[in-house]
Structures are given as structure tokens and as C-alpha cells.
């Protein structure tokens, strides 16, 4: 989230598209109902299904899953054609005026530089024209045909209301009504918030779905303001924290990246991470990358990270592929290229696509280790559960070790919410049986490995032997000790250059902010963006002062929000180029003639003059990007691509199948239904229900009562066509497998007309499995395709094709 849950109360228009906030985040949705009740805000829901969010919406428009980009580019087109643009904002705070290289073009679904064999682009032309002064060239009049604004205008012209309706199935009048409601927020005194979640991410073009709405929000001037923003609702309680701390194959905490093997030494690594400003006066905050990186290396390896060994640069693994994400992991496993796998509080057999492939992959491991508070299907993938898990244990040679862990109620520490608030919690109960904390278990593994390397030697032991492990109890570091490491601390005194008798930094002290981190090895910091969370003043995450001056919803003294306790990021954009708030009634920050002041921690230096420094400080431009340069693998502008499995061909580029640069493994391509398949004619989507949380709450009696049994949802029309009755049984099949399910025949799903053809939708909730308190049932992921987003590899769970036929129930 750019903003926070409590800030949503400040909005005028809530657009829920690519998510279902009322159903998946009820207590956050409270702030939507507050905005409606206190400000007269309106709620628009765009979704293939009439959801619980739609049940309390002012306006609902149906859309075919997987066609959101066409819809949103259509809205952008509408706004551009009807002069519904926050012009001052667009000119001052976006790259609308920047000139793009002459070689860059777009034609029939593809940009310049496409290589069909590699399924990738050469992105060299996707960039600005650079002037003699070394800065990007701009045309503030927006007259130059090569400026971003004109290229965008040309790019979206195709997405007329008729074309949008043809692709998305949204009736034209409904599309136009949504356009009108959204366009109103182009006024500087009106704002809109976008609330989205997996409905946008779980597509082969998920990143571009989100980017497309972000572009629209910039055109409307709704980023950085109260009640505005791009608000990813996010899933698990610490999914934000796990991402912040970089528990991914290619990340270093604080959104730094692991070296690749094309960066054999530290100098090469840093050469692409200099982030020189692209316009005069800009902060380009990533210029500080080296300080954060060196401080991270010092936190990891302390005295072993020296200037002489480039701060232990070679201790880090170097990647040969962009990422070893989950899909690649299971692909490798299935090829027999992996031997051991550890699942910590995660149930991949349920959570990833194509269960048959996953089960086959797990069966090829030598050892599977499960750390979990609960029984999971993954831990028991080898166990026969009839039709729900039809395996022969004697044929599965994988050894499985299942370790019992504590749960939230039994441990201490911080969790990061969607609004980046880091909130501390305390243990309340004794663990059951012999359950242990994850920290204890990870420590045991590390200490044992270290011990073995000490005794036996072995491959490259130094990074393990020299890992910083200065804890009072080496067997179980405390949450406070670990939190302090992440915040960062001073290793050696640093004298004040202006007064050598004074110390700027004192060895042994916690740093107060990432602003003081250094690249000479005198500071250590596990995660620079968390600096300020555990300082000499104490644990800022444990703060519980819920005062909120003038009821802005900021709550600056409640917990700690990264970065630097900032509650709305890009908040400088809440004021115009002279520092005057766009909306006096909703002011956030303003320039008082000498400095920035207001209700939030300013995003830029407090004394940075408003006309000089742009609000988007992480970008070398200082402004936001309507044109993404080469940052996205699939294009600097979003394009409508069909899902890999689609009931219709791509209307705007009939030759292109799916996202042209999404990675597809060879065997998986053969497991996709063909476009407009007769065998699998229906557009399916999988989703969550409010009564359950993923695959956890099926272990709860209460939640099992509230939604006891697996079912799928279809329209009355499709039910009639197929002879399926309400609460009757059906077999739902995809090219990858089939499930038996009860059927809910509902008015909340209606067939759509897409490109002149009737498209039926089959809705598939995901929450059942073969262990738990709820009735045994199939997981939706028996059906889903094994392909991910082109940029971040999130699987395409939201749009695929199935068939459905009436049948009798399972034989007991």
C-alpha cells in the first residue's frame, strides 16, 4: 500500500478491481464503509462475479477475468479524450514530457526488440533521449510527438468503449458509467483509491495490471494524497515483511538484489547500481545503495567482511537465471535436480498450480522437511486419501520430517501490515507438546551445520563459519536481538568532520535512521528500510499511542512504519509544485516557506525546495513513470494480452498467445488448452471466500461450520444448458486434471458476451483439502496452469479454461 488502511476513510471514490476487499479483508474494508458514511464516498466494483464487495457497492460492472488491462487502458483513453486529467500534477510529477528514443515503436501487440525464440525483448530503445548535459530531454509543452504523453495517447487510442466492451464483455453503458465516476476524480479536490489484490497479481501479466491502474492514478493526480494511492491489500500477516527482508532467491533485504554471475566482482556489481540523477537536483535515493549494501554485509559477516575482500562480496551466491522462484523450484524438482526441500509454514501442494506436477516433483526428493504449527497436505503428500490424494505410499521414496512450531499466540516479534506498519506482539500461551519456535529450529540447523563444517571441513565453509551470531543464547536468539540487528548499529566510532572532538556515531549504539549508514564498514544494518524501528530510544514497533491529530488517519505514534515512519509514500505529491496542498480540506504536507511540514514524515528532505526536488525520490528522474523505460520485461506501456488459456483469441493481436514474454517450461506448454478450446470451453477463475483463510482455517471447527464443503459457482444459464442443479454434483476438468464439486447455481455470475460470443464463467473457491476439520475436498489447484507473470512469476490462478459436466457424488 502507498497509503494505509485508516487513510481509506479520506477518499471520495473506492475502486475495487482485481480484489474483493469486503470478502478477503473485512476489517480493512471497514474504512470503505466509513468513507461512504462520513464523506458520501462511492464504491465501484468491477469483477467477473458479484462479490460480497459488490453487495455493498454503489455501482457494479462485470468483466471477463484476464481483460483488466483493456478495461483500464480504455479508462485512460476516456480521460485523455475528455480532458479529465489533473494537468498540473501530470506535468510536474510524471514523465509525460520526457522524450523517448526514436527507435521505440509498438505494433500489433509487440514493442521494438522482440525475440520470439528467447521469448524476450532487447529493451535498449525503451528509454529517454539523453541530452548533451547528461540529463533526459523533456518538452514541457507536450507538443513533441516523441514525448511520453503523445506516445501514450497513441497507444491507448485503440481501446475505445466499443473495443473495451468487445474484449472484456463489460456492457458498454456500464463501462462508460465507471469511466465517468473515475474521471471525476481528476479534480485536484477529488480523489480515488485503488484497492486490489490477487485478482490482479495472479495473471501472466499481473504486474502490468497493477501498473496500468497506477498510470491512471497518476493521470488523475491521486498518488501521494490522502484517500488516494495504489493499495495492495496483501495476503498473509507478514507477507510484506518477508518481502521487505528479501526471502526470495534474488533479493537482499530492503529491495537490493543478489549479484548475477555477469557481475564477477564488487565493482561490476556496483556499476549498474549508481543511480545517477536523470534530471537536475533530484535525490535519486538509490545513490546510497553502496551504504545499504556494505552495512548489510557487515550485519551478516561482521569482521569477516573487510574492504580488502570487498566486504565478503563472494560470500553471496551469484545467480545464473533471473530467479529460482517457486515454479522453477518445482520444475527442477520434477526434473530430479533437487534433493532436499524445506517448507516453513507453507503448504505448496495446495498453494501452487497443477497439483499432479507438484506431487510428482515432491516424490523425487530425498528429504522433505516441514516446519509448521499445523498438519498440511504437503507433509502428507505421500499418504493415500482416496480420490482426494490417490497415491501409493510404497512407491514414494521421499523421507519426510515434520517439525512442530509455535504459532502467533506463542511467539514474540514484529509483523508488517499492508500499510507498512511494523507492529510488535507478545506471547500469550505455552506451546503445545514439544513445539518450538522457528528461530530455535533455524538456529539448531545453523549451529549443527557450523559444527559439521568445523569438524569435517567441506565446500566453501567460510560464509557459514563466519556468519554473525552474537546472541546471548546462541540456541535461541531473542526477538529483540534480531530486531536490533535489522535496525542497524554502529561498529566503530565516526567523528564529526566539523568538530573532531565530537562523535557523529558511537560504536555499540543503535542507528537512529538509515541516513547515517556508511559504506566504509563502520555501520552494520540487516535491513536498511527498517532503520529507526529499534533505536537507542527503544522498540518503536511496540508503540501504542493511538492519538491522531485532526483525525487524518495517520497515527504517527502507533508502531513504526517503514521507511522512516512515513505513512503515505510520495506524500510530497499531495501539494502542488509550489508546495501548496491540492486540497485544503485534505492537506497532508505543505511548504511553509522554509521547510516541509504537515501530518506525515516528509518523503523528501525537509528543506528541499518544492520547485527543485521531485516527489518520487527513488526514481533518478524525481518524477513518476507513465512510461516504464526498460523496467518491465513485457513493455513500457501495458498491452492487453489474453490469459494463456482463453475462450477467445486476442482481438487486438490475434497471433499472440498469452503474454509473449512470460516464461513457460516446455512440458507445461503441452498442458494448456488451446485458444477457444471446444474441450474446455468455460472461463474459470479461482478465489477465496471470507469464511476461510487459505488452507489454514479448514483446521478450525468454527470456520469449517461456516463454509463446510468444496463447491463451484456457475450461472443459472450455464446450469440450465448443462442440466446441473443447485447443490448437485459436477465434474470440473482442465487439461491438467479434474475435481468433483457441489455446484452453487447463482444469479451472481452471469454469462458475458465477448467478441460476439457467449462466455460462461466457472468460479472455483480454493479452501479445501484432505486434512482438517472441514469436509475433505479437492483443491482448486488440481486445475490451474503452471505459468507465471512475466515479471515476477506469480501463477496465473485467476484465468484458465475448464469444462463442467453433471455427475453423481463421490463414492463414499
Amino acid at each position: 500500500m502507498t497509503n494505509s488502511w485508516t487513510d481509506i476513510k479520506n477518499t471520495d471514490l473506492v475502486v475495487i478491481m482485481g480484489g474483493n476487499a469486503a470478502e478477503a479483508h473485512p476489517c480493512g474494508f471497514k474504512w470503505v464503509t466509513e468513507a461512504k458514511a462520513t464523506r458520501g464516498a462511492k464504491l465501484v466494483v468491477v469483477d467477473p462475479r458479484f462479490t460480497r464487495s459488490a453487495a455493498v457497492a454503489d455501482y457494479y460492472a462485470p468483466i471477463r477475468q484476464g481483460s483488466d488491462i483493456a478495461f483500464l487502458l480504455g479508462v485512460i483513453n476516456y480521460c485523455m479524450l475528455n480532458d479529465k486529467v489533473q494537468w498540473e500534477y501530470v506535468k510536474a510529477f510524471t514523465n509525460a514530457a520526457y522524450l523517448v528514443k526514436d527507435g521505440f515503436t509498438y505494433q500489433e501487440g509487440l514493442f521494438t526488440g522482440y525475440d520470439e525464440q528467447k521469448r524476450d525483448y532487447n529493451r535498449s530503445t525503451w528509454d529517454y533521449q539523453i541530452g548533451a548535459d547528461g540529463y533526459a530531454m523533456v518538452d514541457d509543452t507536450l507538443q513533441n510527438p516523441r514525448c511520453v504523453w503523445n506516445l501514450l495517447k497513441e497507444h491507448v487510442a485503440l481501446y475505445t468503449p466499443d473495443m473495451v466492451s468487445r474484449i472484456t464483455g463489460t456492457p458498454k453503458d456500464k463501462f462508460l458509467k465507471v469511466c465517468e465516476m473515475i474521471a471525476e476524480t481528476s479534480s485536484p479536490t477529488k480523489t480515488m483509491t485503488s484497492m486490489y489484490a490477487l485478482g490482479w497479481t495472479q495473471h501472466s501479466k499481473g504486474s502490468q495490471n497493477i501498473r496500468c491502474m497506477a498510470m491512471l492514478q497518476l493521470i488523475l493526480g491521486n498518488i501521494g494524497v490522502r484517500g488516494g494511492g495504489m493499495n495492495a491489500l496483501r495476503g498473509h500477516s507478514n507477507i510484506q515483511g518477508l518481502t521487505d527482508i528479501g526471502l526470495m532467491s534474488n533479493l537482499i533485504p530492503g529491495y537490493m538484489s543478489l549479484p548475477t554471475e555477469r557481475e564477477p566482482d564488487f565493482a561490476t556489481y556496483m556499476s549498474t547500481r549508481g543511480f545517477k540523477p536523470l534530471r537536475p537536483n533530484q535525490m535519486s535515493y538509490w545513490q546510497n545503495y553502496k551504504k545499504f549494501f556494505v552495512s548489510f554485509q557487515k550485519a551478516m559477516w561482521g569482521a569477516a567482511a573487510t574492504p580488502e575482500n570487498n566486504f565478503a562480496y563472494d560470500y553471496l551466491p551469484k545467480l545464473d537465471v533471473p530467479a529460482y522462484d517457486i515454479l522453477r523450484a518445482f520444475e527442477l524438482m520434477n526434473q530430479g535436480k533437487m534433493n532436499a526441500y524445506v517448507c516453513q509454514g507453507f503448504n505448496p501442494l495446495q498453494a501452487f498450480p497443477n497439483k499432479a506436477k507438484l506431487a510428482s516433483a515432491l516424490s523425487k526428493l530425498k528429504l522433505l522437511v516441514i516446519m509448521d504449527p499445523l498438519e498440511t497436505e504437503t507433509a502428507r503428500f505421500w499418504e493415500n486419501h482416496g480420490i482426494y490424494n490417490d497415491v501409493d505410499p510404497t512407491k514414494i521414496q521421499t523421507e519426510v520430517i515434520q517439525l512442530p512450531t509455535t504459532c502467533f499466540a506463542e511467539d514474540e516479534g514484529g509483523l508488517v501490515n499492508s500499510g507498512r506498519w511494523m507492529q510488535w506482539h507478545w506471547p500469550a500461551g505455552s506451546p503445545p507438546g514439544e513445539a518450538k519456535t522457528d528461530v530455535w529450529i533455524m538456529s539448531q540447523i545453523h549451529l549443527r551445520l557450523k559444527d559439521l563444517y568445523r569438524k569435517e571441513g567441506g565446500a566453501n565453509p567460510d560464509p557459514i563459519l563466519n556468519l554473525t551470531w552474537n546472541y546471548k543464547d546462541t540456541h535461541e536468539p531473542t526477538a529483540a536481538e534480531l530486531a536490533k540487528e535489522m535496525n542497524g548499529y554502529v561498529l566503530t566510532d565516526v567523528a564529526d568532520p566539523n568538530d573532531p572532538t565530537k562523535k557523529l556515531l558511537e560504536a555499540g549504539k543503535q542507528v537512529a535512521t538509515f541516513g547515517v549508514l556508511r559504506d566504509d564498514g563502520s555501520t552494520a544494518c540487516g535491513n536498511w528500510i527498517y532503520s529507526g524501528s529499534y533505536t537507542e530510544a527503544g522498540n518503536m514497533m511496540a508503540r501504542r499511542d493511538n492519538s491522531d491529530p485532526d483525525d487524518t488517519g495517520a497515527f504517527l505514534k502507533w508502531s513504526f512504519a517503514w521507511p522512516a515512519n512515513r505513512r503515505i509514500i510520495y506524500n510530497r505529491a499531495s501539494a502542488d509544485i509550489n508546495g501548496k496542498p491540492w486540497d485544503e480540506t485534505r492537506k497532508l504536507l505543505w511548504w511553509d516557506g522554509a521547510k516541509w511540514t504537515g501530518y506525515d514524515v516528509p518523503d523528501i528532505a525537509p528543506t528541499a525546495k518544492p520547485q527543485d526536488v521531485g516527489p518520487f525520490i527513488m526514481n533518478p528522474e524525481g518524477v513518476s513513470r507513465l512510461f516504464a523505460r526498460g523496467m518491465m520485461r513485457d513493455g513500457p506501456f501495458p498491452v492487453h494480452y489474453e490469459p494463456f488459456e482463453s475462450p477467445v483469441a486476442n482481438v487486438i493481436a490475434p497471433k499472440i498467445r498469452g503474454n509473449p514474454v512470460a516464461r513457460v517450461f516446455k512440458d507445461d506448454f503441452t498442458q494448456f488448452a488451446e485458444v477457444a478450446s471446444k474441450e474446455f470451453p468455460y472461463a474459470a477463475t479461482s478465489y477465496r471466500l471470507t469464511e476461510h483463510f487459505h488452507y489454514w482455517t479448514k483446521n478450525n471447527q468454527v470456520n469449517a461450520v461456516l463454509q463446510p464443503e468444496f463447491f463451484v459457482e456457475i450461472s443459472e444459464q450455464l446450469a440450465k444448458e448443462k442440466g446441473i442443479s443447485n447443490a448437485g454434483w459436477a465434474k470440473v476438468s482442465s487439461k491438467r486434471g479434474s475435481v468433483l464439486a457441489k455446484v452453487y447455481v447463482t444469479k451472481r455470475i452471469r454469462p458475458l458476451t465477448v467478441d460476439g460470443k457467449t462466455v460462461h464463467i466457472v468460479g472455483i473457491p480454493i479452501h479445501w483439502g484432505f486434512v482438517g476439520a472441514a469436509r475433505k475436498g479437492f483443491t482448486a489447484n488440481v486445475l490451474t496452469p503452471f505459468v507465471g507473470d512475466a515479471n515476477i512469476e506469480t501463477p496465473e490462478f485467476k484465468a484458465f479454461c475448464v469444462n463442467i459436466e453433471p455427475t453423481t457424488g463421490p463414492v463414499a
Partner: protein
Amino acid sequence: MNMELSRRQFLRTAGAGIAGTSLGALGFGGVEEAVASAIRPFKLVNTTEVRNTCTYCSVACGILIFSKGDLKKGEKATITHIEGDVDHPTNRGTLCPKGAALLDIVHSKQRLNYPMMRKAGSDTFERVSWDAALDKIARVLKDDRDKNLVTKNNDGVTVNRWTTTGFLAASATTNETAWCTYKVVRSAGMVVFDNQARV
């Protein structure tokens, strides 16, 4: 159908109902005299209250956990109730159907109590000691790493990359658990490393 069910219930118990009336009339009183208070004693009295955060979604609602026994005093604590924290700015005491049933997941029948091991080809888990489980894990990891760590690639570049063992991290654990996990996994050179944020 709902109406029908309730009528059935009513009829099934009609006999007993009349019995009650008759018992009173026949002088088998007592019922009439019983002064039972309808109001239950408030069940949170004399419990320990601890502030925590809901373990499910990222709204991160503030919760109050009530227990018999106090961990801070070194006692064993059994959690008896969980409800929303009114002082929390986001949820203001409210909870969703998952949050309102958090007590159930703490005490779920599916909670794991002991380390277990499933041998190759077996159709069951068997209990093992922590030491046996951890020693085994460390041995397998060490052997696999020693055998398969790629220290240099074909071009002679030091890469120190371990791709034959993978780690899938949780996303409902704390930052501190995550950091501890990161240190252990990354220091070993493991790159097949991902977390729930991917999906």
C-alpha cells in the same frame, strides 16, 4: 425447508412440553421456585490479557489474548479467549470470521505436537526426538551442499551457488524469524529460496 425443520423440532418435544406444564399442575413443583440467574459470570475475570496481532491477513488487526496463567511470571499459560483490541486504530476491536475464531486455530486438533518422521515407502509418520530430526537434517544438508555447491561457473567466476536444496519461507512468521531464516539460508549459498509472497 428451514421452517419445516423447526416445526419438526417443536413436535418432537411437544410431549415433554406438556409434561412440564402437567408437572407443575400435579404439584411436582421446584421448577417454579428455582431462582436461577440467567446472566453468566463474565468469563474474562481473573484472566491474563496479552496484546497480539491476528495471524491471518495483512490488515493486521490488534487482538487481545486472554489466558489462564501468565507467561511473564514464568507460569504455564492456557489461552481461553481471543477478541479484538478496541484501542487498535485499524480494526477498533472488530474481527472477521477468521479472526473471531482464532481460539480454534490455537487449539486446533491438527496442531503438531512432536517431531515426526516418515521413512521412504512408509505409509505412516513415526515420532522422533528433536535431536534425531535435527541431526538428520543437518547431515543431509551438509552432504548435499558439499556435493553440489557450485563454487565456480564454467567461466571461472566465483558463484558459490547451491541449487539442489531449496527453502520455502513462511509469511506469517515474524520479521525476526524471517531475518534469522534469511541469515541461515543465505549464508549457506542457497538460491532456491522463495516465500508465500510469490503467490
